[in-house]
C-alpha cells in the first residue's frame, strides 16, 4: 500500500517535471534559456518515471530492475553532453549569422537559418 502511494507520487512528480521541461522549451524567449528546461527538468522527470517503473516491475514480477537503472544512467550521462553540443552549435550558428549580417558572405551563404 505504502509502495503504491510512493509509485503514484513518483509518477505524478515525474510527469510534472517532464511537462515543465517542455513548457520551458516552448515559452522561454531565447535559445540558451530554452536549453535549461529539457536538460534539467526533463532528465529528472524521466528519472523519476524510470524509478517508478523499477519499483512497480520489481514488485510485480521480481525481475530485479537493472535494465531500468541502465536506462536512467544513460539519460543522466548523455543529457549534459547533448546540452553542451547544442550550446556550441547555437554559438556557431550565431557567429555565422552576425558574419553574414556584417556583409561578409560565407561559403554556404548562411543558408537555412530560419
Amino acid at each position: 500500500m505504502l509502495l503504491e502511494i510512493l509509485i503514484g507520487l513518483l509518477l505524478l512528480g515525474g510527469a510534472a517535471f517532464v511537462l515543465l521541461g517542455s513548457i520551458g522549451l516552448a515559452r522561454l524567449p531565447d535559445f540558451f534559456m530554452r536549453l535549461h528546461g529539457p536538460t534539467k527538468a526533463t532528465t529528472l522527470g524521466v528519472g523519476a518515471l524510470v524509478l517508478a517503473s523499477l519499483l512497480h516491475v520489481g514488485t510485480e514480477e521480481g525481475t530485479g530492475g537493472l535494465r531500468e537503472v541502465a536506462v536512467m544512467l544513460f539519460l543522466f550521462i548523455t543529457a549534459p553532453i547533448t546540452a553542451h553540443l547544442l550550446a556550441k552549435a547555437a554559438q556557431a550558428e550565431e557567429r555565422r549569422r552576425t558574419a553574414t549580417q556584417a556583409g561578409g558572405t560565407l561559403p554556404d551563404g548562411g543558408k537555412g537559418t530560419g
Partner: protein
Amino acid sequence: MLTLTLPIAIGAVLLAMALNLWRMAIGPTRPDRILALDTLSINTIALVMLLDIALGSVVYLEAALILAAMGFVGTVALCKFILSGDIIE
C-alpha cells in the same frame, strides 16, 4: 492509486510532446529544432516507461533503451553537422 495517477501522467507527457512538436515547427533556429527533437525523443522514453507500467510488460523497456541510444546519437550527429557542416570529419 495507479488507476488514477497513470492516466494523468500519460496525459501530461502527451501534452509535453505536443509542445515539443510546436517548438520544432516554429524553430526559429536550427539548434532550436534539434533541441525540440531531442526532447521529443526523451519524452517518448517517458511515455514508453509509462506504458511499461500500464501494461505490465518488460518488452517495452528494450524499446526505451534503443530510443535513448538512437536519440542521443542522432542529436550528436545533427550538432556536429551544424558545427562543421559535415558529420564525418
